[in-house]
């Protein structure tokens, strides 16, 4: 192509390659070689690339140093709002609770900064926390933060509608223990609201305990003051020493306990501080069971025993609920007495099973009672925080104790008794066998149902007139008359005194 042809401007060439001043073809020149006009040029990508690479590296370095040197803002729990989610914040407060889970390798700390509480969660971080806080070169070396310690924590807020605000602990370095709790030895009577969320050393005696669902409420008493020590099932299981666990549930045990004073429903209560640590509970003396009080039969209770605390075994025969108390009729060996159980004492019975046994008809119970009188009549009062031992429904004679034939009476209906005597008369019917037993001039009836009489008949010398037998069975009524009814063949045996 000739130069004149090149310098022509064909209509089909794009505008960018033509000089805007003289219209001649200039290609990629930045200045027209013909008229020296400056030409619009396209932005070179090379510049963009260099700016991108250098800018990003330099910018990242600047950003890194800015972040490292950034001061994290301290906020209060009460000021946390929804738009603070994911923000990096600093919080200062007192540890209200520490929960660790070795299986899940997690640690949860509840921090109270005076304006509210927030949960600090370290999932799969417990071992790192333990190592860090045990290392004296990195921290004070006294172990994990405990209740009452003052902490400063840095972390990203995690706010959810369901669980509220919390912080995920990503590193133990973000938890700074400003002050370890000084554990002061205090008397129960001296506790007040100002002492809330502080850890104390308390020496007290176990008065008793009761189980409430997933926790045990142990009543500690010291110098006539008492307070509840609440231990959750998991915390109780974390107590490694079996002796300590036993002492906590044994009345009269003397303990020296590290506790956190808290409150529940406006009532002061104690919680164990770090139950998994050996030194948090010391058993000064093991208590004795209250059941070491003397046992006494109902029939032996007399006026001169008023004021005594004794253990009685009897059968529940009736329950009457009155305002503020229950009157339970108990019976043993023909003697019936009233057992008064006030509502607060009923509530103090250690568990639901025991409470049910106390009010269930015909249940056999062993209880600790105080002998008293009311309007001239002897009565028994259940002692607070004592267990209700549950029998099998057998009588005190269920160990084989033989009772006089006169005991076979309508008042003993439903009870299992053991009698012995000579067979005076036998009559067989299609439905079973009826025996008349005689002993010391008294007689009693025994009925053997077909299922029992058939195998018994096969025992030589047993079902014959004159044989001396021992029979154990339930007292039933037939046509208004009481009789003993054994339930199995082995309940009737030949008896030699």
């Amino acid at each position, binding site marked *: 192509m000739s130069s004149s042809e090149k310098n022509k401007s064909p209509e089909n060439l794009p505008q*960018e390659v033509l000089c805007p001043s003289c219209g001649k073809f200039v290609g990629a020149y930045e200045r027209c070689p013909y008229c020296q006009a400056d030409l619009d040029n396209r932005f070179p990508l090379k510049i*963009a690339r260099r700016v991108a690479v250098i800018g990003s590296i330099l910018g990242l370095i*600047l950003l890194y140093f800015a972040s*490292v040197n950034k001061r994290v803002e301290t906020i209060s729990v009460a000021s946390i*709002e929804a*738009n603070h989610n994911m*923000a990096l914040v600093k919080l200062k407060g007192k540890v209200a609770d520490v929960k660790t889970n070795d299986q899940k390798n997690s640690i949860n700390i509840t921090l109270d900064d005076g304006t509210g509480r927030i949960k600090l969660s370290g999932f799969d*971080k417990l071992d*790192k926390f333990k190592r860090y806080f045990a290392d004296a070169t990195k921290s004070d070396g006294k172990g994990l933060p405990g209740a009452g310690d003052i902490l400063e924590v840095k972390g990203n807020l995690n706010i959810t509608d369901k669980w509220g605000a919390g912080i995920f602990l*990503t590193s133990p370095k973000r938890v700074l223990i400003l002050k370890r709790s000084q554990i002061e030895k205090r008397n129960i009577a001296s506790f007040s609201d100002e002492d809330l969320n502080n850890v104390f050393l308390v020496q007290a005696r176990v008065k008793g305990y009761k189980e409430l669902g997933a926790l045990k409420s142990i009543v500690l008493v010291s110098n006539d003051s008492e307070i509840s020590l609440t231990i959750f099932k998991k915390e109780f299981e974390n107590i490694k020493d079996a002796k300590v666990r036993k002492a906590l549930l044994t009345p009269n045990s003397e303990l020296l306990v590290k506790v956190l004073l808290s409150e529940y429903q406006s009532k002061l209560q104690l919680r164990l501080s770090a139950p998994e640590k050996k030194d948090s509970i010391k058993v000064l003396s093991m208590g004795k069971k209250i059941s070491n009080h003397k046992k006494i039969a109902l029939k032996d209770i007399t006026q001169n025993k008023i004021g005594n605390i004794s253990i009685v075994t009897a059968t529940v025969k009736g329950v009457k609920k009155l305002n503020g108390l229950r009157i339970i009729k108990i019976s043993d060996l023909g003697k019936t007495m009233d057992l008064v159980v006030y509502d607060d004492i009923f509530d103090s019975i250690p568990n639901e099973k025991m409470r049910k046994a106390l009010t269930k008809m015909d249940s056999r119970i062993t209880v600790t009672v105080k002998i008293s009188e009311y309007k001239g009549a002897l009565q028994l009062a259940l002692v607070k925080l004592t267990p209700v031992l549950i029998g099998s429904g057998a009588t005190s004679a269920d160990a084989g104790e033989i009772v006089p034939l006169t005991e076979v009476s309508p008042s003993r209906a439903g009870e299992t008794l053991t009698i012995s005597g000579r067979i005076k008369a036998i009559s067989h019917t299609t439905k079973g066998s009826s025996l008349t037993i005689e002993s010391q001039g008294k007689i009693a009836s025994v009925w053997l149902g077909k299922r029992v009489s058939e195998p018994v008949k096969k025992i030589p010398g047993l079902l014959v007139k004159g044989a001396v037998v021992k029979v154990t069975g339930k007292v039933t009524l037939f046509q208004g008359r009481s009789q003993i009814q054994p339930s199995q063949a082995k309940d009737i045996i030949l008896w030699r005194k």
Partner: protein
Amino acid sequence: MSFSLLLGFTLAGTGVGFLFSLFPSLHIYNVAGIALLIWQAFQSYIPADGVAPFFMSMIVAFAFINTIPMTFFGAPDESATVTILPGSKYLMNGRGYEAAAICGIGSLCGVFLLPLMTPFFFKIFPVIHRVVSPHMAWILLLVMIYMLMSEWPKGCGMGDTVWKRFKHAWGNLFAGILAFVLSGILGLIITSKSMISVEMGFQNIMPVFIGLFAVPSIVQNLISKEKIPDQHISDTVELTWRQIGQSTFQGGIGGMLAAYLPAVTAGIGSILAGHATALRGDVLFLMSGGVAKVLYYVGAFLFLFIVTPLSPGGLGKGGLNVILKPIFSPEPGDYTIMLGVILLSGCLSFLLLLKASKLTLKLLKKVDYHTLYWFAMFLVMVIVGGLTGSAGIFVMVVSSCIGSIPVFFHARRSNCMAVLLVPICLNMAGYGGVVTSFLGLN
């Protein structure tokens, strides 16, 4: 909640989502953050029950309408960095409207796919989650390795020296790796010790994402002298039933991966699904991209409502979950309501997409798109500056430089997702604290 109130919030959310999705480079999560602040200010007047339908319909509308800036303005978000190329090709061939329609049909298929997958979501998905979640760290690590390695090899380069040929062949790959590494470091800094103020903590990551994805696109388009050719608005699209089936299948896999795996976007999910299914073609890319976008944005939020004994708190993830979790928790029974909201909003959004595409093309004939991009740049600066202050602007600028690397070196923009992938993977593996301690960020 009464039907009229539910309908009202759904329509309102669709409307808001429609309006704001038209802006190039403006992400719906930014809008959601602003909406949350407005809701907090007026929460005594707005019923709490309206939160879920409003935001769900907003995100559904975004999943559809976002196609318009993506296709016509070349402004992809983090979910669409793979599909932008076929869309641009269609646009330059005068078939931009068809590209938007195909993408919209894909999104519509995604909307209908979600209710059909309900039995899977409630019966099988929670079990999968139980099994997979303890292994998430190494799964994400594999995703990252795959993202990087799937770009290799690229073939031989051109040039008259060995160095020039090497540079030509491998330059963009190393640029991609550089973008990945720098994004990862940026992510570690931002997630462990953010510069953003406490009051805007929930928008910690906003300047980063705007910088990594929005600003480079704006800059790129401002530099570009490309003229959009005349577009033809057709009544039909080049699509067969077989392609619909294949796209739904591919997009479904990609979208589900993106909806479930943390920090994995629809773009990354589409790469994985595309390689897994070995299906190729521009139509497939466009349509499966639409399916994946709906599953990614809408599905991730819908998973929050899968309340089962194995998943009592739902299985949701994603930016909208993070923004809303302080004020909202799902109840059993909400899932069905959300399905209704998705269906209604999705169908409306599809119709709006077609209409809006036509209007946009008419507008583009009269208005230079550079003007729109200058406005978009101004808008993002105002949003970032207004919400997060100078610290946010600084972070945005740094992120923009990093995000510009794949743009100008022709590498994969999805490599910038290392900003979340790396910190999340490290934290899940239990090494996040170690790394940040090493960097002095503790």
